């Protein structure tokens, strides 16, 4: 009986995993044939890969996506780190107010956030451009930076900072040398989380961009209106997947090593 449940459990979990990967794997398999749609096999070929890199529009789109993600993550990380430290040392009422405001974009529906920003820009007569898009992505990612730094600040021993001051360090110096190193893991994961949220975003991008500026999300969305995905996107999916897999393995090996070293 026990063994039967265990076999059922394995079959169930693996079936779900296969289903989760099916759409991506199918795209990856058909990235090695030059057919118009998936399901048609025109013989094995690497042809889509050079085509991907020669497709100037798609390359621009990918670069735009990365640019927005890195720029917004950088802004969010700086603002969010300062914000998290400031909130941590604020008086109770101010702290509660700021923490409440931080929760709004997390709880709110993304489309409401997006529309509210659009209305703001329209109301003040601001043209949609790269800056409005950047602001949109910062709104999306900033609370998550604060949320990932917060636990680190709470775990910190407040006495070390005081000790540094007693030993004659200026507050700004102590901030840089004592507080920042201790919350660095939180800052780092906040940055990474920002990048992934920004890369994945469609709604805020669609509402706050200048329509001549496309990211991967808006490009693919536009393509779906015309029918099946363009073949070069299959090659791109494979590239993204392999990149993510390598990154994931590297990050996990590193954190594993750190845990080993800490032992």
């Amino acid at each position, binding site marked *: 009986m026990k063994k039967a449940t265990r076999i059922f459990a394995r079959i169930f979990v693996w079936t779900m995993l296969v289903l989760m990967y099916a*759409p991506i794997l199918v795209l990856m398999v058909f990235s090695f044939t030059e057919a118009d749609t998936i399901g048609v096999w025109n013989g094995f070929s690497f042809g889509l890969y050079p085509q991907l890199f020669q497709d100037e529009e798609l390359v621009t789109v990918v670069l735009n996506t990365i640019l927005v993600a890195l720029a917004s993550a950088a802004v969010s990380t700086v603002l969010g780190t300062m914000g998290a*430290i400031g909130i941590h040392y604020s008086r109770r009422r101010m702290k509660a107010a700021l923490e409440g405001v931080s929760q709004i974009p997390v709880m709110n529906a993304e*489309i409401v956030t997006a529309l509210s920003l659009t209305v703001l820009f329209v109301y003040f007569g601001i043209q949609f451009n790269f800056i409005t898009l950047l602001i949109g992505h910062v709104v999306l990612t900033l609370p*998550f930076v604060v949320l990932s730094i917060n636990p680190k600040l709470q775990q910190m021993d407040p006495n070390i900072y005081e000790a540094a001051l007693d030993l004659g360090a200026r507050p700004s110096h102590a901030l840089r040398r004592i507080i920042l190193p201790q919350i660095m893991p939180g800052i780092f994961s906040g940055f990474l989380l920002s990048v992934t949220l920004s890369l994945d975003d469609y709604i805020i991008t669609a509402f706050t961009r200048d329509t001549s500026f496309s990211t991967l999300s808006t490009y*693919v*969305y536009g393509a779906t209106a015309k029918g099946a995905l363009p073949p070069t996107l299959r090659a791109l999916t494979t590239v993204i997947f392999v990149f993510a897999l390598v990154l994931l393995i590297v990050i996990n090996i590193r954190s594993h090593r750190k845990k080993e070293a800490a032992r």
Partner: protein
Amino acid sequence: MSKIKFTRKWLALPYALFMILFVVIPLFLILAYAFTDAEGNFTFNNLLTFFGNGSSINTILVSFIIGVANTVICLLIGYPVAYFLAHRDMKMPAVMMLLFIMPMWINFVLRTAASRDLLFWIGINGGEYPYLATMIGMVYNYLPFVILPLYTTMTKLDYSQIEAASDLGARPRQTFTKVILPMTAPGIVSAATMVFMPTMSSFVISDVMGERKLSLIGNSIQLYFDQGLWHMGSIVAVVMLLLIAIGMFATKNVQKEDDVRGTML
């Protein structure tokens, strides 16, 4: 001493200004737009126009049904997966968990379009079966958001209580309904909140999977946005905000897992 506290506290100033300018003020603007006309006069017309339109009621109903269905299906699939992963029925549960999150690294629109093309290939055409295709797309997208909080709750389960229940003569079904289910309630609630509201307000999945043949609350906001009808879009957004507020109020006394998006990495 007081001077030092002063400097650190004021680090939050740029953050606070940013949040007020780009989060708080826009929400008040939405509220103002929802109840004014193009000339800026106060009016209930937007509200009346929205609710006077039969298709709006239809949209809310369809959103609600798809939201409930998606939540239930995701829980029915996600609960056993999380349970099996957490209780050593599987080798290397942490790696398995990562495998479930990994597809989220592919761009959301690309992933959704990929599943649409796959369904099309096996004969489920979104144009012919918009509801079926949308449901599959929803479950495909939200399943990881269910598995993660449930998995977190289940790894914290006190296994000795489950053993005690069966030692004291509880049948497996009783153990499940009287012991395991109540202990995993926080995970279930946070999983449900991670799925239900976002489903109702989403529009990309229903657009792509259902070939734009089906309208959720998110779709109607997007439609008004496309037409530049900010006042009408705002009233729908206010309705959505109200629904979110009701949802938060209904679950405010329930213990929940932390937001799982932070643990995605």
